[in-house]
């Protein structure tokens, strides 16, 4: 009898317990009626439950609430009352300690070996393959096509035939596309190149574009009559077909490059603070969309740096190889900081770098390396200075 009663009480007590997922669902999704009942029961069972729930509500209303409070570790430390420790150091104990140390040492040695094969990978074993030719093409109607390097395909758009062969997309205007076009009836395609990818493109005017990893290019299937407008996020090298009547204009956010026929490299990643235009030959003008007066002319061998936050332009004479080597299958670094190098490597090998040694970010390197090598040979080169070591976990490379 008493036993049964006891069980019943226990059962009731258990009912009062609530799983946090119910509370979480209340704030993030929705509750079923029975869940709602369970939550209400819990809230009504004890005033403290209600209080806690009210604080949760506040937290959800204004996220800052819990962050606003800054504790003071100095103050807290003064309130800590630690009992002093007196390690006893008898000679026989040291003997035992030494043997334990030996055991511990072998144990950890063993552990480390296990870990290596399990999760953390040391420098010599970091094997990440270089990028490959891959991209996604988004057609004017929104249809998506995965482009593979080895497969030759023909894609039909309304106004052009697109040949995909040897990792290159080539636009050939058909009869329908040749009619005169106004701004309104332009049809667009978009090429998305992921991290660890690159792709080549020949636009309908014959302009050749090499697109680097983690980039998006949006362009008309057939250009309009008066100008050739395209948009880029990321990095690409352009070899623009000369057409003195139709300027070729590349827009990235509020930055514009205008050319008539020339070759240049444009680098404009969202996670970098600047946009760099490097001119190989010909002539280009760069400008900030908001002020037409700030148009700048760039000479071959020069690079324009547009600072996104201040909206200012700077020009420098540069070694263009450093900025265009990627399209010829090389990494060419000149006094480049390790932080900048890891950005480049991260995109190409589709890995992320984490600096645990913050000082290493500013180390500078020179190098001329093969882009199609496994990352290991590049890390070996960088690690030669002995100032830094690399280790990897999943797709993260740690710099120590």
């Amino acid at each position: 009898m008493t036993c049964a009663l006891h069980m019943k009480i226990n059962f009731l007590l258990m009912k009062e317990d609530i799983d946090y997922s119910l509370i979480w669902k209340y704030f993030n999704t929705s509750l079923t009626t029975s869940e709602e009942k369970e939550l209400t029961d819990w809230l009504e069972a004890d005033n403290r439950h209600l209080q806690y729930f009210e604080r949760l509500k506040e937290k959800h209303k204004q996220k800052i609430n819990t962050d606003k409070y800054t504790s003071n570790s100095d103050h807290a430390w003064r309130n800590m009352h630690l009992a002093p420790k007196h390690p006893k150091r008898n000679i026989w104990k040291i003997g035992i300690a030494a043997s334990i140390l030996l055991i511990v040492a072998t144990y950890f040695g063993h552990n480390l070996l296990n870990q290596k094969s399990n999760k953390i990978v040391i420098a010599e074993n970091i094997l990440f393959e270089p990028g490959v030719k891959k991209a996604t093409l988004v057609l004017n109607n929104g249809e998506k096509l995965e482009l593979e390097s080895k497969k030759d395909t023909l894609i039909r758009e309304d106004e052009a035939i697109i040949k995909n062969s040897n990792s290159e997309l080539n636009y050939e205007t058909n009869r329908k596309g040749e009619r005169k076009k106004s701004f309104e009836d332009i049809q667009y395609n978009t090429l998305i190149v992921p991290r660890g990818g690159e792709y080549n493109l020949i636009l309908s005017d014959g302009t050749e574009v090499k697109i680097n990893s983690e980039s998006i290019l949006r362009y008309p299937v057939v250009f309009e009559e008066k100008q050739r407008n395209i948009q880029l996020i990321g990095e690409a090298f352009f070899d623009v077909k000369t057409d003195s009547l139709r300027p070729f204009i590349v827009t990235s956010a509020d930055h514009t490059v205008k050319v008539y026929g020339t070759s240049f490299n444009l680098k404009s990643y969202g996670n970098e603070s600047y946009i760099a235009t490097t001119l190989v030959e010909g002539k280009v003008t760069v400008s900030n969309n908001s002020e037409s007066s700030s148009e700048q002319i760039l000479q071959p061998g020069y690079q324009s740096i547009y600072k996104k936050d201040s909206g200012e332009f700077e020009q420098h004479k540069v070694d263009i190889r450093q900025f265009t080597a990627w399209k010829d299958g090389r990494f060419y670094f000149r006094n480049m900081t390790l932080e900048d190098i890891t950005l480049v490597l991260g995109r190409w090998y589709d890995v992320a770098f984490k600096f645990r040694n913050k000082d290493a970010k500013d180390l500078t390197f020179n190098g001329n390396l093969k882009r199609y090598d496994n990352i290991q040979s590049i890390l070996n080169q960088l690690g030669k200075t002995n100032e830094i070591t690399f280790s990897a976990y999943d797709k993260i490379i740690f710099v120590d």
Partner: protein
Amino acid sequence: MYNDKLIINEIRNGNSIVFEKVFHEHYNSLIKFANQFLLDNKISEDVVQGVFIYFWENSDSIQIKTSVKAYLYQAVKNSSLNQLRALKIRDKYQLLYLEAMLETSEPDWMNDCEIVESIKQSLQQLPKQMCRIFYKKYFQEQSIKEIAKEMSLSENTIKVQLYKGRHAIRQILELATSYFFIF
């Protein structure tokens, strides 16, 4: 990791200078962390200080698997959940832990493999729907929206194609939540 072994050894030998250093290094972020569970500054301070005192007094028997930091977070988590047990709250799915880790957003917890691994495991154990909400809330970048608008593409297209694996944390999350990318 070797560094952590040294720290433990020193603390075991009663080196209070090393202990104080560890205390100052982690105290404030642990308070923030505990506060995500407890939503009460005073109780959070008690919990964290309690963990440090326990750590000091029982350092001989405490096993540190990888890092002192991971141990402290684990201990504060357990102690906070104990407090919540008094309010009759269970946390089967470790939702509180996940929220606390992600809301605290301490800049370098990513460097601790053990912590990353534990987040990954917790995410993997979530029911799909919950996992999806976590992902939406914490890991979708605003810029995806902007780019989608600029390039006239669906946000999903960009998310899948380009931003896949932009940050290290996303790499890990992808393993745990790869079914997001099926549709």
